[in-house]
């Protein structure tokens, strides 16, 4: 006989879907801003990875709002627009999200400095993964200076991004309380 228990379980009245869609929209917009920033001569061929800062924050504090498909789409849009190896950044982002899901609880209780160090390792790992895949597929190594600049600038922007996102989180919570 077919198990019908699941039909009588508590219905999900508070779906995360609209919020997940909102997070996806913000993520894609950040990717577009990244591509737009490259038009500044200062960031030529080394635009900071803003989408990674956003993904890192969301994976620690709101991982239920960032399903794997969101991470995949963000990576794929970046690959398409930057004309990188299709799926390169998407794979790197997804592998990182997989690792982060395992250590999210520990990171939630960590101090900011630890979060920054962990982010540095994550950012380096994402770029290193892309570099290895690129080198294997093209049998050539690209210039490393722009890569180091890109990673370095992303790390410098991390505290600013983190403060902005934390403030937005607090603001949204306050609005929800008032509502």
């Amino acid at each position, binding site marked *: 006989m077919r*198990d019908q228990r*699941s039909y009588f379980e508590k219905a999900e009245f508070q779906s995360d879907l609209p919020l997940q869609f909102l997070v996806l929209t913000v993520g894609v917009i950040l990717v*577009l801003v990244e591509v*737009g920033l*490259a038009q500044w001569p200062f960031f030529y061929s*080394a635009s900071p990875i803003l989408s990674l800062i956003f993904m890192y924050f969301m994976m620690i504090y709101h991982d239920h709002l960032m399903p794997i498909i969101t991470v*995949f789409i963000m990576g794929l849009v970046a690959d398409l627009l930057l004309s990188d190896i299709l*799926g390169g950044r998407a794979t790197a982002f*997804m592998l990182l999200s997989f690792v982060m899901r395992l250590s999210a609880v520990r990171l939630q209780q960590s101090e900011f400095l630890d979060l920054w160090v962990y982010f540095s390792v994550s950012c380096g790992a994402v770029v290193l993964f892309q570099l290895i895949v690129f080198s294997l597929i*093209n049998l050539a190594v690209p210039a490393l200076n722009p890569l180091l600049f890109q990673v370095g600038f992303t790390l410098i922007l991390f505290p600013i991004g983190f403060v902005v996102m934390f403030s937005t989180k607090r603001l949204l919570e306050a609005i929800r309380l008032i509502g």
Partner: protein
Amino acid sequence: MRPSDKTKIKQRRLAHVGLIVLSFSLMFLGKADLVSLRDGRMGSNDFLAPVIDFVSVPIRGIQTMAEGIRTVASLRAENVRLKAENDLLKRWRRRAEILESENQQLRSVTGAVSYENRKPITARAVTAPGGSFAHTVLISIGSEKGIVQGNPVITSDGLVGIVIDVGRAYARVLMISDINARIPVILSSSSWPGLTIGKNSEFLELAFLPAEAKPAIGELVLTSGHGGVLPAGLAVGRVERVEDDRIWVRPAVDFRHLGYVSVLIGGIEGIDNSNLSLGDFFTPLPVEDDTRLLEGLNASGTRQ
């Protein structure tokens, strides 16, 4: 834990693994350069490019504002510099007119043909390279305006690259600084042929030069026209450094300030295989019943 939760977790894990596998296989499919994948890529660029354009408006605005402030601050010095440059250009113009007239006379004597039937179309660069892995730009012009794969893209300073993907309203340009770009060139003073190779950095490597060639620092490197894709005589860059086994060229175009570009369409060069049919090049022998098995035409075209 409820049974439905277990199922959800299982489904989530399956989706995770499935998407990673899909993403991983996309990397190899992308390298295989499948036509459908390329069309999909250009289709998505056509869709996303106007959005980037919209998002980039404030970014460009800030850049313009900063440049405006800098320009106002250096207006007086700029004016003096421009006057001096204007005098120099006037002298060069007179020299160019003399050389042009001399060139025409020489062409009429030698019967040389000049290929000038290319039409430039101006387009705006919508994006700039944002990473170190690919040096390409999207331009706001596509198949609607007659752009085809292989069209050269230039600015007043020199060669930017070649159109590699064409969408309806947007096209992607492979810049000469990309790691996959190989441009046949010659040295302007000695005419030795070589090849510039992009390195995804600010310099190009000049390779395959004959051993006798001695490039001088600052020497102009021009397209040779070999291969038939690019017209001859476009400025590629200047020799920047000569090391023991490597020669480095600085591109003539400053890619960091790429605003508008010109796409050269038409001309006898370019990849045009629309009229390429086998019948134009191959005429089969008439079939005769009494022919011998090894019969055919020799090099001079007579039957043997």
